[in-house]
């Protein structure tokens, strides 16, 4: 039983960066932008978050962990949103191809993260790490409540970034499905020409959704650096996470509600073998790591064949909208 609770906790911690990436990308794709730069934006967010916290601690006499954490979140969000802004400017204003621009953003962002990671490390004299106080915040839990047996461990033993991810996911879900602006955004993603005719500012919606979505992805990158890597920059530490997030968006069929489940399923899969003796040898566990992608392909095929419109990719996703070309 104890082991099971441990497993659930590890699942939640491992699934959180996926949740950020997935929800961010859902918001982006709902506006009709298939941004394949998630990985790049996560790298940008990761390094910016670390750098923000690091420099705050360096230039403050008595740094407070909570403020450092807050700065990390804000920096990660802004830097990744800036990456998304480059994407927006190129695809929306300058009408560049979305796939190619997204990949360029991934190349750029990966380089950006590793480059500044290394520069920061060498300036900090070997390797860059945040203070123990900040680390404690990212390994924290909900005071008092977490000491309740079992329930406390299951529900309240996580750091603030986990709860923030869940809140963001729920907020985006409610925004998309329960508000007028959310409806407008979905209209932009499905059929921008119709949305335009209805008086919706297509460009503004696309810009905002993509930049905010990118920012959310960036917080996921910060989470990996701060929580998974304990506040130390490791080159290529985010590699792969962004692509899993792109896969997850398909797996949860563009629903933030299902993203809450899907992210933790993928998170659980990634830690399962440490808790359950599956009898896999090293080679077989490599095949096991393919399961999320294979499952995603199956979901893609099934939803495609059934042609269920509810579970389909937003109709205009991947194509730019030119008002003049109607």
């Amino acid at each position, binding site marked *: 039983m104890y082991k099971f609770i441990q497993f659930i906790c590890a699942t939640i911690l491992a699934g959180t960066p996926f949740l950020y990436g997935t929800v961010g990308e859902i918001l982006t794709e709902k506006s009709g932008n*298939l941004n*394949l730069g998630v990985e*790049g934006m996560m790298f940008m967010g990761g390094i910016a978050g670390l750098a923000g916290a690091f420099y705050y601690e360096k230039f403050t006499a008595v740094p407070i962990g909570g403020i450092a954490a807050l700065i990390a979140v804000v920096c990660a969000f802004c830097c990744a949103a800036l990456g998304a802004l*480059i994407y927006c*400017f*190129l695809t929306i*204003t*300058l*009408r*560049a*191809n979305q*796939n*190619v*621009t997204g*990949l*360029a*953003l*991934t*190349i*750029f*962002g*990966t*380089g*950006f993260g*590793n*480059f500044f990671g*290394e*520069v920061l490390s*060498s300036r900090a004299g070997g390797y860059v790490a945040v203070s123990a106080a900040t680390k404690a915040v990212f390994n924290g839990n909900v005071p008092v409540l977490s000491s309740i047996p079992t329930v406390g461990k299951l529900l309240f033993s996580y750091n603030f970034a986990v709860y923030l991810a869940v809140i963001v996911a729920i907020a985006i879900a409610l925004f998309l499905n329960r508000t007028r602006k959310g409806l407008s955004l979905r209209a932009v993603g499905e059929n921008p020409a119709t949305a335009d005719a209805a008086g919706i500012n297509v460009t503004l919606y696309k810009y905002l959704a993509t930049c905010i979505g990118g920012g959310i992805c960036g917080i996921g990158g910060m989470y990996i650096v701060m929580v998974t890597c304990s506040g130390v920059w490791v*080159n290529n530490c985010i590699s792969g996470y962004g*692509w899993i997030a*792109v*896969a997850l968006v*398909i797996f949860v069929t563009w629903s933030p509600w299902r993203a809450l489940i899907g992210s933790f399923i993928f998170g659980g899969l990634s830690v399962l073998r440490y808790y359950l003796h599956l009898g896999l*040898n*090293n*080679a*077989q566990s*490599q*095949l096991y*790591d*393919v399961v999320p*992608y*294979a499952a*995603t*392909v199956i979901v*893609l*095929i099934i939803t*495609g*064949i059934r042609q269920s419109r509810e579970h389909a*990719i937003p109709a205009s996703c*991947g194509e730019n909208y030119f008002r*003049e070309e109607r």
Partner: protein
Amino acid sequence: MGANSEKTKRVLSHAEPLVRLAKRSDMPASKAWAIRVASIVAALAIGAVLIVALGHNPFSVYADMVKGSFFTKTSRVETIKIAIPLLGAALAITPAFKMKFWNIGAEGQILAGAIAATYVALFWIDKMPRPVLILVMFIAGAAAGGIWGVIPALFKAKWGINETLFTLMFNYIVLGFVRYLQNGPWRAPASSFPQIAMIGFQSRLPKVFGVHIGWIIILAITVAMFFYLKYAKQGYEISVVGESVKTAQYAGMNVGWIIIRTMFISGAIAGIAGFLIVSGEDFTLSESTAGGVGFTAITVAWLSRLNPFVMVFISMFLATLSKGSNTIQTNFKIPASAAEVLTGIILFCMLGCEFFINYKLIFRHRKGDEAGV
């Protein structure tokens, strides 16, 4: 164009926006390429700002990159070796992109080809003479890459399933399979580290002018691809499907078959690139065999406007950046990932500059431009 400007004029008579856009198709090729070159220069200037911020002289850094990539024979060979698979994968993507089939699975198709070629090299090496062995590796690589490319095409042709996401997922499935081979069935028993044995000398490509003959194969494919797309009937069908599926159907073309056939070609060329990496460069298979080449190649293909000859230059250019970044890491202690940052900036600038080639900005009070020509 004529009808379009008629329409714009009518709209104009009501309310004129500050800036409006008109499509243009009349820019001479020389001017268009001048703009593209200018955008690269602009990108290098942005990179220079970054270098200055790090406290170095941008001119000596850039000069060092070029020196490090070309000044000695070894470095030239290394640079060309980086460019070969990049060019190969870019050529692979070309017919698919021309068809507006967004194949972002070249990475996986490279690996599929590499697996097949490695299989032949590891297990059939005693069974045939060297030229036959290498030829069989070539064919196996092409076939495996082609099959891996056809699967998403089948689903696209039959059920219209999104090929971008499908091919993307397929990259990671085949990557996982390579890791499986590396850790299990194909793991070299003698090594303590999970790796596949080096392939025998028999299965390695011979060299011409110091570089494995892959460069000749790739240049041959470059020429073939140019003529295939420009003069062959199949190449014409590809561009019709790319422009408008409905037109193609109306003209009696079997669109599904064209998609499947083109994706086989696309995957096969990527598979050949994989074979070249294994047989000419790495002499083994590992999870880093493709190493992102399949993704970078997409940008190479696109920035070359899907023109195979231009791809030769763009892939050499990116290879220079990548090789040169190792030099500046040694000489200036600038992290090698600077190459990726610089590549990214160049890609952004080049992607952005296409807009100014394809569109014309018309400001409010310039009556002379009204006709939009």
